[in-house]
């Protein structure tokens, strides 16, 4: 009964989305306030029904109702409650439900908190949002219905794919989808602006918090997925340039560019047409990411050909939304008024440079991901585009971006002083130079570029601190005055500097672990020891440990420093899941500061030896810590009263601002 209610609620939501997508548009054309006022309540009602539908599916999973095909295929009553819940989106149908749920949630948030938006812009944007919702709801109802029943209900479900039975599944997909779908708001506002043929700096102010929120979630989602892959897969890699990863990186790059160009638009009224294009691109890339992952083209062009229903449907959604948006853009964008002049050396100029490199990096990832598919479809030739390609192309595009990054915030709007900025960055350059020299002195035959990478990372970090030091004048005025200035700084200034600092932290982690990470591969018998870096591990033996729906074969290792101090034990295991007859590698991690020891097991050989891989990963945690710092920076910026949704405007505008407008 609950499944049928969920199915029915989804159909009602689809009906509401159609109303929400049509009436406000007609209302905006004919200036009919009654039709315009349909948008917000329709968006709220649509959210209620989508939430009911999603809740119904969740109820089926929690109660392990195996008469529902989707639950039978992806769940098992022996799984802990958390995994029964997360397995809702551990499969195709359920993850599309999550997509639609988050989309409806964003629509409802705009409807509820968009009180200060111009009526027409809000109604049009909600209508565009409803088109996307309707398209995906129809996709679920016709090709991916999660509420289908089985006539003879089985007693037990087939279990969730073991590799997904991990806390990572609870955070990673929802965060990614919050990011992907969050960009739909920017997209809807861009289309609404194009429909109206009018756009101003205020548009950027309304859209920025949504883009910022989406970017924060996507940043954390990508980093979380990277850490998940790192500890779950057993060989210590954190980024593989896999098409599925690239699918999430592309919207992140475009979204980062959008975040920066929207600043220029808000502050200076410039780059309007470009910002609109980026808003369209960021969400288009999110849709392409969904298509790549959902349609099966990645596994093989032939999978797509044998069961094309889902793929063709998503491809149609893709063509309609991306094609439609770009056509509308080509037609209407020339009507938008250009504004805001600036010298090449200025804050705006620096942000244009940022956009140039980010979009080129995004284009590089795009072609690297899709080229093999296109080439095979067109000529039948099979090539591979792997990490060596991306390292050779993406890296050189990111280095100048990172070198220029500390300069941007130190330049003034309209006309900046490059020499002045460079002088203020002397401290950063000095520290970077010392770090490069020290790294060269300390390393024995490591990669030549690595010390420069360390220098760049420190330059970026010190550059971000320099920005804060300049704004608070901490070196020039007494401490008390500097603290007062710090407290008075807008949160968005703090946010930007903190996020930039986070980039430097991530870069430092990547460079150090790539250049100076160490590895030992060995086959051990109980009693054997291996040494790596400053650590000595002795293998005590294997034992069995039962779990709720799996069995572990655990290897126990005692970890000591090479001088003999005991540090603890590491217990990597091979985990077997009887329901699917599959095994996973559960690596053991031991944290040493922000570095880690990483140990994973192979299957024990008949003669009793166990293959092990031991890694020392110096500073590896900085990679993800940097992403968390970026997230915090985004949060600080989001909490700025200027951007806070529905924040009351100051009663009196400062005189300078009035004069400028």
């Amino acid at each position, binding site marked *: 009964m609950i499944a049928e209610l969920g199915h029915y609620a989804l159909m009602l939501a689809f009906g509401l989305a159609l109303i929400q997508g049509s009436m406000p548009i007609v209302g905006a054309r004919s200036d009919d306030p009654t039709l315009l006022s349909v948008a917000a309540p329709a968006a709220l009602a649509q959210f209620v029904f989508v939430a009911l539908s999603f809740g119904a599916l969740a109820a089926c999973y929690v109660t392990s109702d195996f008469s529902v095909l989707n639950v039978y295929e992806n769940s098992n009553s022996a799984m802990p409650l958390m995994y029964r819940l997360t397995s809702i989106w551990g499969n195709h149908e359920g993850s599309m439900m999550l997509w639609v749920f988050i989309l409806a949630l964003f629509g409802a948030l705009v409807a509820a908190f968009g009180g200060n938006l111009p009526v027409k812009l809000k109604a049009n944007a909600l209508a565009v949002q409803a088109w996307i919702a309707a398209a995906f709801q129809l996709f679920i109802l016709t090709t991916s219905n999660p509420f289908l029943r089985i006539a003879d209900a089985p007693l037990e479900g087939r279990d969730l*794919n073991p590799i997904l039975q991990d806390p990572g599944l609870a955070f990673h997909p929802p965060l990614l989808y919050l990011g992907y779908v969050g960009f739909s708001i920017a997209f809807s506002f861009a289309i609404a602006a194009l429909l109206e043929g009018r756009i101003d700096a205020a548009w950027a102010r309304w859209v920025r918090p949504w883009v910022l929120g989406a970017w924060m979630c996507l940043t954390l989602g990508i980093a979380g997925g990277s850490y*998940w892959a790192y500890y779950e*897969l057993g060989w210590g890699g954190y980024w593989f340039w896999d098409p599925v990863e690239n699918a999430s990186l592309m919207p992140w790059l475009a979204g980062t560019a959008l975040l920066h160009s929207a600043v220029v638009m808000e502050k200076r009224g410039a780059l309007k047409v470009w910002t609109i294009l980026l808003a369209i691109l960021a969400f288009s890339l999110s849709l392409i990411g969904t298509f790549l992952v959902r349609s099966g083209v990645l596994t093989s062009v032939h999978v797509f050909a044998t069961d094309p229903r889902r793929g063709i449907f998503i491809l149609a959604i893709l063509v309609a939304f991306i094609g439609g948006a770009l056509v509308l853009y080509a037609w209407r964008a020339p009507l938008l008024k250009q504004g805001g002049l600036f010298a090449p050396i200025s804050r705006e100029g620096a942000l244009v440079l940022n956009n140039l490199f980010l979009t080129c990096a995004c284009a590089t990832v795009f072609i690297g991901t899709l*080229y093999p598919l296109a080439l095979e479809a067109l000529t039948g030739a099979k*090539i591979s*585009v*792997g990490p*060596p390609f991306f390292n050779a192309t993406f890296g050189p*595009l990111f280095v100048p971006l990172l070198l220029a990054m500390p300069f941007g915030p130190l330049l003034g709007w309209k006309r900046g002083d490059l020499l002045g900025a460079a002088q203020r960055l002397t401290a950063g350059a000095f520290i970077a130079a010392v770090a490069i020299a020290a790294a060269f002195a300390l390393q024995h035959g490591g990669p030549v570029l690595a010390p420069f990478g360390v220098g760049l990372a420190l330059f970026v970090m010190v550059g971000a601190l320099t920005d804060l030091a300049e704004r608070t004048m901490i070196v020039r005025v007494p401490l008390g005055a500097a603290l007062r200035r710090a407290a008075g700084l807008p949160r968005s200034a703090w946010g930007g500097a903190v996020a930039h600092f986070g980039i430097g932290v991530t870069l430092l982690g990547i460079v150090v672990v790539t250049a100076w990470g160490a590895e030992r*591969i060995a086959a051990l018998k109980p009693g054997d020891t291996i040494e790596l870096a400053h650590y000595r591990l002795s293998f005590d033996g294997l034992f069995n440990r039962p779990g709720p729906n799996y069995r572990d074969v655990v290897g126990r290792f005692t970890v000591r420093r090479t001088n003999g101090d005991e540090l603890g034990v590491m217990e990597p295991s091979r985990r077997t899941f009887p329901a699917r007859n599959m095994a996973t590698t559960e690596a053991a991690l031991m944290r040493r500061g922000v570095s880690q020891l990483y140990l994973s097991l192979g299957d024990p050989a008949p003669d009793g030896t166990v293959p092990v891989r031991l890694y020392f990963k110096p500073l590896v945690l900085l990679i993800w810590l940097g992403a968390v710092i970026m997230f915090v920076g985004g949060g600080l910026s989001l909490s700025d009263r200027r951007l806070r949704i529905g924040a009351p405007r100051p009663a009196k505008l400062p005189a300078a601002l009035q004069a400028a407008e």
Partner: protein
Amino acid sequence: MVVKIVARGTRTSLLVAFCLLLLNSLPLLAVESKEMLADPALEARARNLSKELRCMVCQNQSIDDSEAPLAHDLRVLVRERLKAGDSDAQVMNFLVARYGEFVLLRPLLSWHTAALWGLPPAALLIGVVAIVVIVRRRRRVQRPEAANLTAAEETRLSELLREG
């Protein structure tokens, strides 16, 4: 069959690649100790080459990372060629001749990959040219306005600015 089930489940998780799962149904770790060469210099070369070679039955995984039996065979093959005295380029050519270009994770530069390798620099070039052209055009539109000030006005303006 196992492989198929595995692949289906993973489509969900956006970052956990399909191929990664292959290894979980198979018995061993990627590079094994008994595969490794005694000569550390030769072994280091083998590891570097392994990172450039694709395990063809996996999804976007190098033979260095893969546990698949094919990857094991390729790793052994690379080491045999190196021991026989082949240069790195000779090893790569041997593998391309045997398995086709698909085995290379870094595509060769040729006519059918020209667009792939050409796009990143081309995008940067086009972007730079576009920005320069747009900035020039804007400035030309703006210049008459700026030139309206007479020399006296300029002096007065700079005085005012100094006072402020």
